[in-house]
């Protein structure tokens, strides 16, 4: 027989030290038409019960001073109030809590987080069950041993079965939630894998782009060098050829003069042609690893730069203490040497100075070839020392610097040839050190 909510609504005492939880509970119960009072802990609860006996107590377990179990026990021990139904709020983290609830004398428990329907139905059940009182079944004490602890349970069979069902229901619910979470995780995982794949493809593309850009940069550098090599020969050729008709006009075009001029011109033309061949050979990608002499390769690389080192004049000294061999990709190695020399040339050209020098030393240390290329251009500022090998880093401005040269040089030496490329500042300038 349910009491009509308007006439005399049942009074429920909420005991919870968390104000938010208490308020939540209060709102749910008040909405159902119950009369609610709130205590913040067990002691306050007992005081309130003494003043105004509630029809039901809903209590949290973890509370300061007197916890939910203790509150339960005290209520059960006091004659006037021992029959008040008690619902305990547990968070179901410890199975022993179920046994403890039973031992303490709680009628029901509900696990947090709870949904409001389950709570209301339990509240109704608890209030209804109160009417029936403890008439059914035996109330003998049952002793339960669980994980080394002994529990003495005095609840009746109905209560125990009810509790078990509730426990099972909760377990099923939790299981369902778990499966859902697992599914969501799987979906998330799949999405993540896809993202990783896409990202890897992107990075691979970037790598390709970098490679392409570095080749273009090297090509650009080469074309610049060729232009330098050809400029003077072209000037001289132009003047030489123009001389011929002029001398004819002056009446001085002798057979000797003609032959001499032609011979000079052909020499120039052949020199220019050799430059093309030199650069073409240099720029051809290596098909295979070969054994090559370091000194020879550096000398031929230098000859490609002849023109660019004239104006302003840069003196290059090669000091070869040994004549080591390297087994690797010759043209790629030459590319690295050229890149470092080009950078040195740029640095030396930028400053106003009298004696521009580059010193190249070659020696063998153990089974490694060690090459150093040092300039007297003043050195690299400390602030950018750590960055010069980074891709896309350049100090030459967007028009002239591509920023890929040193990055690719290091890549070639370290990845393709298993060596090392480093730089340090000396008293006069920068010194690059290659060990292969």
């Amino acid at each position, binding site marked *: 027989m349910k009491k009509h909510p308007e006439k005399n609504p049942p009074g429920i005492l909420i005991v919870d030290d968390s104000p938010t939880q208490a308020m939540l509970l209060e709102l749910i119960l008040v909405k159902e038409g119950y009369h609610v009072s709130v205590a913040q802990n067990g002691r306050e609860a007992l005081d309130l019960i003494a003043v105004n006996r509630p029809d039901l107590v809903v209590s949290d377990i973890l509370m300061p001073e007197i916890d939910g179990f203790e509150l339960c026990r005290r209520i059960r021990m006091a004659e006037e109030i021992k029959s008040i139904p008690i619902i305990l709020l547990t968070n179901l983290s410890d199975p022993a809590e179920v046994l403890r609830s039973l031992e303490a004398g709680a009628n029901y428990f509900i696990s947090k987080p709870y949904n409001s329907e389950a709570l209301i139905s339990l509240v109704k059940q608890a209030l209804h069950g109160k009417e029936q009182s403890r008439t059914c079944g035996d109330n003998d004490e049952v002793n339960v041993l669980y994980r080394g602890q002994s529990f003495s349970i005095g609840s009746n069979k109905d209560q125990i079965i009810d509790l078990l069902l509730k426990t099972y229901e909760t377990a099923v619910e939790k299981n369902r939630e778990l499966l859902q979470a697992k599914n969501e995780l799987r979906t998330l995982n799949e999405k993540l894998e896809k993202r990783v794949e896409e990202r890897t493809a992107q990075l691979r593309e970037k790598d390709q782009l970098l490679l392409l850009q570095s080749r273009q940069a090297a090509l650009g550098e080469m074309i610049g060098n060729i232009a330098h090599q050809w*400029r*003077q020969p*072209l*000037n*001289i*050729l*132009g*003047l*030489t050829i*123009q*001389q011929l008709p*002029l*001398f004819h006009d*002056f009446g*001085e075009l002798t057979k000797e003069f003609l032959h001499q001029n032609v011979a000079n011109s052909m020499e120039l033309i052949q020199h220019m042609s050799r430059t093309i061949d030199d650069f073409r050979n240099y720029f051809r990608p290596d098909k295979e690893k070969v054994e090559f002499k370091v000194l020879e390769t550096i000398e031929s690389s230098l000859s490609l730069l002849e023109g660019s080192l004239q*104006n*302003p*004049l840069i003196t290059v000294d090669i000091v070869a203490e040994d004549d080591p061999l390297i087994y690797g990709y010759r043209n790629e190695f030459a590319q690295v040497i050229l890149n470092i020399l080009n950078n040195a040339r740029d640095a030396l050209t930028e400053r106003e100075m009298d004696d521009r020098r580059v010193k190249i030393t070659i020696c063998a240390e153990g089974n490694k070839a060690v090459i150093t290329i040092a300039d007297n251009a003043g050195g690299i500022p400390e602030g950018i020392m750590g960055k010069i090998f980074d891709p896309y880093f350049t100090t030459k401005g967007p028009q002239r610097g591509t920023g890929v040269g040193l990055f690719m040089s290091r890549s070639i030496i370290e990845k393709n040839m298993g060596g090392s490329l480093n730089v340090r500042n000396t008293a006069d300038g920068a010194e690059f050190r290659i060990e292969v």
Partner: protein
Amino acid sequence: MESMTDPVPSVSILLAEDEEAILKLLVTILARKFPDAVLYTAVNGRTGLELFKAHLPDIVITDIKMPEMGGVQMVDKIRAIKPDTKFIILTGDPGKSFDSGEKEFEFDHYIMKPVLFGVLFAAIEQCLAEIAQQQA
């Protein structure tokens, strides 16, 4: 340092160019085309300036990129000595024509390399005409 002497030297020209082969070719041709002119040659700006101070030539034909002292600097200093000197600049780099990069310099003539003699002759002849006018 060369000079082609003539009983009455009318005009003197200073040639500054660091590439010797080119300098030689220029002198050979100019000596024949302008037999009345006195030619002075220098392979860098410093020597060029010294020669200028010594002989005060009327026309200066110079390259831009030279060791020790570049063409622009030399021109600057020469102008300070004799402002009405005629300047003919020879240069190979269309974009990067000036040492210092910023200031705009005025020259009488500006000739791109490879040099076309026709263009060079025309420039020199125009300078000669202007000098003749000034002296008149």
